[in-house]
């Protein structure tokens, strides 16, 4: 997935995360994360963001995330939505729980 513009998803509400994704010139994910639960869950949130982007095949992007205590499922959902918007891609692959 190629990031071509700026994409945002999420809110600043409690238990949510706002994720901004922008194109980057260099290869790699440049992640800035601030979180209300940085000390307790910072590493875990970063792991989920990086894994979700890898899953989507995003190889270069500037990612800015402000977390207000979102659960892992929320983090992944916001990252995906922001990435699709930043890639101007509407070809969603919906997955249903088996």
């Amino acid at each position, binding site marked *: 997935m190629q990031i071509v513009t700026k994409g945002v998803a999420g809110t600043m509400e*409690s238990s949510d995360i706002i994720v901004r994704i922008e194109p980057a010139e260099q290869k790699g994910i440049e992640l800035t994360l601030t979180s209300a*639960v940085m000390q*307790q869950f910072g590493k875990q949130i970063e792991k989920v963001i990086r894994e979700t982007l890898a899953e989507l095949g995003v190889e270069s992007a500037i990612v800015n995330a402000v977390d207000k*205590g*979102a*659960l892992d499922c929320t983090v992944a959902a916001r990252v995906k939505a922001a990435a699709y918007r930043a890639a101007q891609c509407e070809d969603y692959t919906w997955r249903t729980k088996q």
Partner: protein
Amino acid sequence: MKNIDLKKIPHISEITAQHGSFTGTPVKPKETFLERMGSKNKVVPSLEEAIRLSGLRDGMTISFHHHFRNGDYVVNMVVEQIAKMGIKNLTLAASSLTDIHAPLIEHIKNGVITHIETSGLRGKLAEEVSRGLMDFPIVFRSHGGRAAAIESGELHIDVAFLGAPSCDPYGNANGYNRDEENATCCGSLGYAKLDALHADKCVIITDHIVRFPNTPYGIPESNVDYVVKVDSIGDPKGIMSGATRFTKNPKELLIAKTAADVIEASGYFYDGFSMQMGSGGASLATARYLREKMIEKNIHARFALGGITGQIVEMHEEGLVDKILDVQSFDLIAANSLKNNRFHQQIDASVYASYLNRGAAVNELDFVVLSALEIDTDFNVNVMTGSDGVIRGAIGGHPDTAAGASLSIVVAPLTRGRIPTIVDKVNTIVTPGSVVDVVVTDQGVAVNPARPEIKELLEAAGLPVTTIEALRDRCTRIVGKPEPIKYKDRIVGVVMYRDNTVIDVIHEIDEE
């Protein structure tokens, strides 16, 4: 005057060794009572003068109450004045401290305050303390523990500086004002009453001097040395709201409804029961659900204790609660009820919860509903430190009521955002699991294994009873496992159980 030879009286040394024989009376007053009130009284012209007259010196202990909560101007005003007068190395013993007391940070840095005793700490001051602001650890006591420490002399108060919304020129002080409707108001002066009784010197700081006698009073003139009038003792908006907000949060309502069901099934819901509802959305809302059950079953309560809210007052006024024992009024409805209702009784911190006196009201409780930041699988409760290890709470009467009541119910959501409530080990033990009976969350109820009879009753009533371990596992499944908090070796706080033994310590946080 008769010339009496004391030596001829048998056993005189045992009758009155020091007083000797009568030598005459002091000058009798001739002015009217009204004239006297204007001239011969305890009112001093300034706070500075009151501090000077109190004899406050380096190294002494000063005390304050927290009935003005986050609207309090008194602590900052007094410490500022003391700092100007160059007095240092003081112990500040407040019944509690909160966000508004952040200016104390400066006075700790400049050596005016070197020791602090309190029930709790919040905001900037709490954060700084957690980062190692003070050399001497803060001593945290419960409301009952503080009362016991004052009574035993473990906490000796040299000068008490007590804010009061009304006071007469002789020191009869009250938490409300009978002359003016819009005056500052805090209701009960429960914590201040005990300080006034035991302090060597007591200064009342008021914004309303009223005519003698300011009865019925919270603090009697016999306990008061000086009265100071200032422009403002606090911000009414920070002292209390009109009515305690009734939560609309569906999670809290579910918890409250379950807690009321637990009470109903527990065997402690009978005609003439006694109760206390802690502060916090869910515990306050429990009263609302309990009220419906009381009306439905035609059951009334003999008394409600504690921090009193409008909801308890409403139940008192409609005849569901016979009597109110009030150590601290939480809202204006409660404060007005104290002023107007004959059986809404103001009680001091000792009568409320001391373990050392000859009887405290917490020992007569059937049940108490309390909040928690964290509960562990041994049922220990933390209401003091946040999930990042920083101090952000207060012991209050938590351990006192949990220990005194036949049934202590702790209510909390299973998770707050991403923060787990049910954990393996709480950060700070405030109330030991041995006095915590039932934990009610939005996703199930756990009963302390020490109370199998309660578990049976709740199960028979069809309540969602599970184990504390199952609640913890559910918690972990939802939020994951948090990284452990990093602390330094240095101890910044000592947490006392209600008998003033050390139950836990709080370490400086390590932010590197």
